[in-house]
């Protein structure tokens, strides 16, 4: 069983919204029709997005950190939005685990959005159907694209590689390795939805610098008790230029 998913590294996400804009650009120009905006250039702009980046301040000043939190459909392994759909427009693909909406069957009753604890679904105000992240299903199997580009567009656009795409049921995939190596976790595990998308936690990034890293203990000059050359008082190239 394949379960395609995203693993989002909160440690490297810088909150640049590149995934948001590239997602909107790819999906609004796709065959499924536009993701419509209201007042895009006026006060209170709003519209349909599959992916949003939220920001949270953790801690109390001055000991705070900003956590940027990209939020999209998590493609749950037990999606609560699917069984409630009265028309069968919402479905989970057996072959790759992607949760999709058939826009031609959706009656826009919004019941699936009530059933999603994550608020991952949005009604398109113009087309009046429920929309959500498709994991760029129209890229993943498109053989006209180079193989390296058969990935969700948010993954390709992320400048810090904070988004990892892969099959989380394949223990050898990049996504599975990232989850097991960096302690990947699921959102709101208390509801038993088993989200396929995982998040990697904030980690302390530090390098331990030991004396032996700065001075080679096995330096042959030291063996001969000759020591490193003493600093000269002459101006070096580094001192005279300022690039």
């Amino acid at each position, binding site marked *: 069983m394949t379960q395609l998913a995203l693993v989002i590294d*909160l440690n490297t996400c810088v909150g640049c919204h590149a995934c*948001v804009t590239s997602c909107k650009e790819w999906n609004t120009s796709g065959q499924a029709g536009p993701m419509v905006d*209201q*007042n895009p250039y006026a*006060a*209170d*702009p*709003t519209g*349909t*997005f599959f992916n*949003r*980046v*939220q*920001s*949270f*301040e*953790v*801690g*109390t000043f001055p000991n705070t950190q*900003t*956590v940027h*939190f990209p*939020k999209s459909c998590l493609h749950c392994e037990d999606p*609560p939005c699917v*069984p*409630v*759909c*009265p*028309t*069968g427009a919402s479905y989970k693909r057996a072959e790759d685990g992607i949760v999709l909406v058939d826009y031609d*069957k*959706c*009656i*826009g*009753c*919004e*019941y699936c*959005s*009530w*059933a*999603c*604890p*994550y*608020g991952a*679904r*949005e*009604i398109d*105000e113009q*087309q*009046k*159907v429920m929309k959500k992240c498709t994991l760029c299903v129209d890229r993943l199997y498109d053989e006209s694209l180079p193989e390296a580009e058969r990935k969700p567009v948010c993954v390709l656009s992320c400048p810090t590689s904070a988004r990892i795409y892969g099959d989380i049921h394949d223990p050898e995939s990049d996504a599975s390795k990232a989850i097991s190596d960096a302690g990947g*976790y*699921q*959102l*709101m*595990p*208390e*509801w038993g939805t088993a989200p396929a998308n995982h*998040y990697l*936690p904030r980690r302390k990034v530090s390098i331990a610098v030991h004396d032996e890293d700065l001075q080679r203990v096995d330096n042959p000059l030291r063996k001969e008790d000759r020591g490193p050359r003493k600093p000269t008082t002459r101006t070096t190239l580094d001192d005279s230029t300022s690039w």
Partner: protein
Amino acid sequence: MKPAISVIFLTTLIGAGQGLFLAFYSADWFVLLGILRAPLNDYSGHAAALSVLLLALGLAASFFHLGHPERAWRAAAMWRSSWLSREVIALPAAMLLILGYAVLKISAMDSIVLLLGESIPISISMVVGFGAVLAICTLFVCTAMIYACLKFLRQWHSPLTVLNFLLMGCASGFTLASALASYSQDGRFAYFVGMAIFLTLAALIFRFATLLRNKGLRSPSSLQSAIGVHHPTIRQIAQGAMGGSFNTRAFIHNYGASIVRLARRGFLLLGFVIPLLLLQISNESSILICSLAFVLQYLGLLAERWYFFIEAEHPQNLYYQMIS
């Protein structure tokens, strides 16, 4: 949750319609068994037609909830998994069966089909009516389970939701039946009023119990589990959209605490306490009092259903605490 107006009308109208039919059909049985006196002028068929009208109005209201009402027929497809789909089947089924009962009663095409215990004649309308009762019970359960099955809407996820929908629907239906009986000087009035008082009281008790239950509910979700950062102090500084989004429009209501409190007191008074007092002082000819009891109770139940939505806290709201 933000109250969905068309759903409020749907659930209250069909509740009253279902209760109304149950009132007259149950009275039919008591007449057959000789417990109630047969009315001089039996208008059960017309009452059932009114019940169909209420259900039809509710069905019409529900269409305003849909983005694509022309595709509504598709909603019957997923009855194996979706309570909404089951409701979509049960509602027209109940309407058809009640309509069948009404047509049989009004057109005098009714005839005896079997004898129960050698002495009680059962007519076709009673058989069709029995089917309608089954459909109505199914419909009550389906309608309520649409809300009760959503496990993370903790205020709804309770057997009390099903019981409340059943009791409130029946209470308003029997109150309406009392009003009809008072209008036509019907011997069944005492039965309708007695049941209306009993059901309204029971509905009040269980709705109040639900209020108490929901007051003490704590969601297992928090901002910590929502974003997976386990620090006691987290503050949202951006929600990813400046002009709001579907998530803020559909799930977050901006009614102040005073309006919500007013609605709670209002529905307890209008929906239960005042109708109880009015029904208590009514007699067989108090058309005005019984009609007023129904109108006030219906308005109260509209407020109750509005509050039912306000009461439910959706965990997705954790992600939308501050615009920027």
